[in-house]
């Protein structure tokens, strides 16, 4: 991961060739530019992170002082059925909702990239699901849609299919939650939209003069030019997918039927605050960090093959 990240190909090469005062200047400038983050990190973030790591090896009920327990929290995790349930649910959620959400967001962003009338209003309307977020209104709407005699089942009955009680059935409860996540595609959409704006228009003009159709323009211009942004969205959606909290909580409180909609972060929060086991929650948090880190590294490793940073070369 270390080596792959900001290996912006050309600059490194030039740096190595240049003299060492130049290198020193760059290092000074680099640290100067990132100094806001560095300072903020050491003031606000560093300590809490270290403390949470230490707490992972303690039993801490918040009301009294933490007590060192070594690896006991991790052992408890190993034999905690609800924990594994939460892991399973979260993986299922991440690996379905993230790709679907990204595809949907990109498709809508391309639709919304046109210059037709009212496009601003349409965009705002399509952003509404992300604005209403975790509100009661969304919970109510989803229960109506996916209820036993809701709109979804009405539609299915026209096709001769007898729909289940989606949110009450342990086998189907994740489906409405995943659809909810896809429906709230606003933030990746907006980022795609901003990315699309950055693609030089001339590229498309040149391509259409060459007779390239829509699909080929998409494949050979849009996708590569957008790849840094796609990469960003993928990484961020992956991270936020693993950390998902609100969706499960509002649609299936308490973990839903047979705990099939119990998400990792929700369980972690329940352990930490409702059950006052902050040590255990911290241990869970660090395991989650390792899981997310692993998948993020995977994405970064593959990024060399499909993310293009120097626009001129690939155009």
């Amino acid at each position: 991961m270390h080596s792959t990240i900001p290996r912006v190909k050309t600059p490194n090469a030039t740096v190595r060739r240049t003299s060492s005062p130049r290198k020193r200047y760059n290092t000074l400038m680099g640290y100067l530019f990132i100094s806001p983050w560095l300072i903020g990190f050491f003031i606000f973030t560093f300590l809490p992170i270290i403390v949470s790591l230490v707490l992972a090896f303690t039993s801490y009920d918040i009301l009294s002082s933490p007590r060192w327990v070594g690896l006991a929290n991790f052992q408890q995790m190993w034999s905690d059925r609800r924990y594994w349930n939460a892991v399973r649910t979260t993986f299922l959620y991440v690996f379905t909702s993230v790709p679907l959400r990204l595809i949907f967001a990109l498709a809508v962003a391309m639709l919304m990239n046109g210059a037709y009338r009212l496009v601003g209003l349409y965009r705002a309307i399509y952003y509404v699901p992300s604005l209403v977020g975790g509100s009661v209104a969304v919970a109510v709407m989803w229960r109506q849609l996916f209820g036993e005699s809701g709109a979804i089942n009405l539609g299915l009955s026209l096709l001769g299919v007898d729909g289940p009680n989606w949110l009450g059935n342990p086998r189907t409860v994740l489906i409405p939650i995943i659809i909810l996540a896809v429906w709230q595609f606003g933030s990746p959409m907006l980022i795609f939209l901003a990315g699309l704006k950055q693609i030089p228009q001339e590229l498309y003009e040149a391509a259409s003069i060459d007779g390239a159709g829509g699909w080929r323009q998409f494949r050979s211009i849009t996708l590569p030019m957008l790849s840094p942004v796609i990469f960003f969205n993928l990484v961020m959606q992956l991270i936020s997918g693993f950390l998902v909290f609100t969706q499960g909580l509002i649609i299936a409180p308490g973990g839903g039927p047979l705990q099939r909609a119990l998400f990792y972060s929700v369980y972690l929060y329940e352990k930490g605050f409702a059950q006052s086991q902050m040590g255990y929650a911290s241990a869970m948090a660090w395991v989650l960090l390792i899981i997310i880190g692993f998948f993020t590294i995977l994405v970064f490793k593959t990024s060399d093959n499909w993310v293009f940073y120097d626009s001129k070369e690939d155009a």
Partner: protein
Amino acid sequence: MASQAIGTRSRLERQRRLKAGAVQLVIIFLGLFMIYPLLWLIASSFKDISEIFTRAGSLIPERFTAENYAIGWAGFGGISFATFFKNSFIIAIFSTIGAVLSSAVVAYGFARIPFAGRGFWFVLMLLTMMLPTQVQIIPQYIVFNKLGWINTFYPLIVPKFFGQAFFIFMMMQFIRGLPKELDEAAEIDGCGRFGMFWRIILPLIKPALITSAIFSFYWTWEDFFGPLLYLNEPRLFPVSLALRAFSDPAAATNWGAIFAMSALSLLPAFILFLMFQKYLVQGISTTGLKG
């Protein structure tokens, strides 16, 4: 703008229009699905309490009442929503300014300046996003308590001025998508790093800045957890937290008032979005390339 480019050929133009029409129809149909909860929220906010649950499915109130807005706006014991909105605006506006500016500076450093330790700090920054915040709450509270910042807006605003990992990473990606030649040209012009950043990079990543501003504003606006922990007195509450104080699972809850104030609380972010999104539609982001 794509259609302008090909506008010379009228046959293509006609085809395009037809397609655009069909696309519009799809957009409108899907749009209804997108906006339904908002309509439901607004409809419920005009219903009498006896009607909200007995006729939950209906989008048209049987007896239209604006009373919920009056009751909701009154807030709690003399602290009205005027105060809560004011607090929300203060927190969200300053957080947004802080987050966007500082993140852009940091992003430039990470994206364009090769320096020793860059990879290490970048990985560390990503890691901070992967650790669930729930377990950092208590130590963080202790830090802010030691700083004497409890019951002030500082814990909510000041950290934003030190860059936010999400925005930093996002802007990095946008900056790295810009051609390197720009930097070289600027260097020849005698611009230092700051000049390059301010005069060349910043204008070019305007779409990313605007996107960040929209997110930052909305995320701060809807966040209730930070305010819950760090603000004690209700006169300092933002809207998000005040809304939560309305309802309690075991006590009588005035849902009408909640819905009314929820609907109002969506307005600022919605308006901000409408105002700012047009900067994402201009389609002339190539000025920098030509100039």
